[in-house]
């Protein structure tokens, strides 16, 4: 299994975790994103994710490298699912192991924030009353330079 993986299959958390187990790790922080039914008054029926797969896997790998630079000895594995997902399905599973727990929490949080910034994956919400591409499609945030901040070219 790849440590940085986009898949159409359902995600097995333990397979993601297994890739970061290490004899000098004392802590593993796992973040699992699941499909939530209610967002405010809006009811999600199901989701559809699409990705620019080869680039998305490269960007996930970059996040792993960024984490290793910021938290030495951290080991990261990330799997993101694409396709149609039902309520409670796992969209993403991130595992980071570190010698001490503080770093594991920080790095795992960093990973999910970075995914939402730089990894080419898009979510379409299918609500009870319509559908919508999620994210900042309306252009309130712009990237004059053509790339997000902090992205190494």
């Amino acid at each position, binding site marked *: 299994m790849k440590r940085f993986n986009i898949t159409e299959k359902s995600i097995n958390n333990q397979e993601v975790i297994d890739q970061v187990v290490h004899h000098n790790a004392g802590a593993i922080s796992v973040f699992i994103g699941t499909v939530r039914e209610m967002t405010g008054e809006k009811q999600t029926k199901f989701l559809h994710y699409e990705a620019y797969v080869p680039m998305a896997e490269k960007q996930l790998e970059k996040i792993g490298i960024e984490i290793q630079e910021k938290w030495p000895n951290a080991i990261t594995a990330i799997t993101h699912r694409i396709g149609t997902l039902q309520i409670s399905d796992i969209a993403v599973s991130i595992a980071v192991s570190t010698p001490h727990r503080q770093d594991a929490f920080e790095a795992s949080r960093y990973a999910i924030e970075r995914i939402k910034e730089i990894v080419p994956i898009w979510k379409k919400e299918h609500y009870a009353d319509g559908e919508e591409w999620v994210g900042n499609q309306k*252009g309130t945030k*712009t990237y004059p330079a053509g790339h997000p901040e902090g992205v190494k*070219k």
Partner: protein
Amino acid sequence: MMIKILLFANLAQQAETERVSIEVKSPLSVEEVRNMLQNQIGKLSGIENALVAVNEEYVDLTDQVNDGDTVAFIPPVSGG
């Protein structure tokens, strides 16, 4: 020379395709590719907010695109 263009999410939906090829005479900038694309297939709302990647790496609008390159327009991402 030939440039491959990839569109995603709402951009692909508007274009009704995920792949477009454009024929150009000489190397040009990312921004020029963006203009040529819309000359060819029509205005794509929101494309000015899309990130751009050439051969799977983010680039600046002023970067150069060469023969055979793949230019991807990446609307604001929403993974996780």
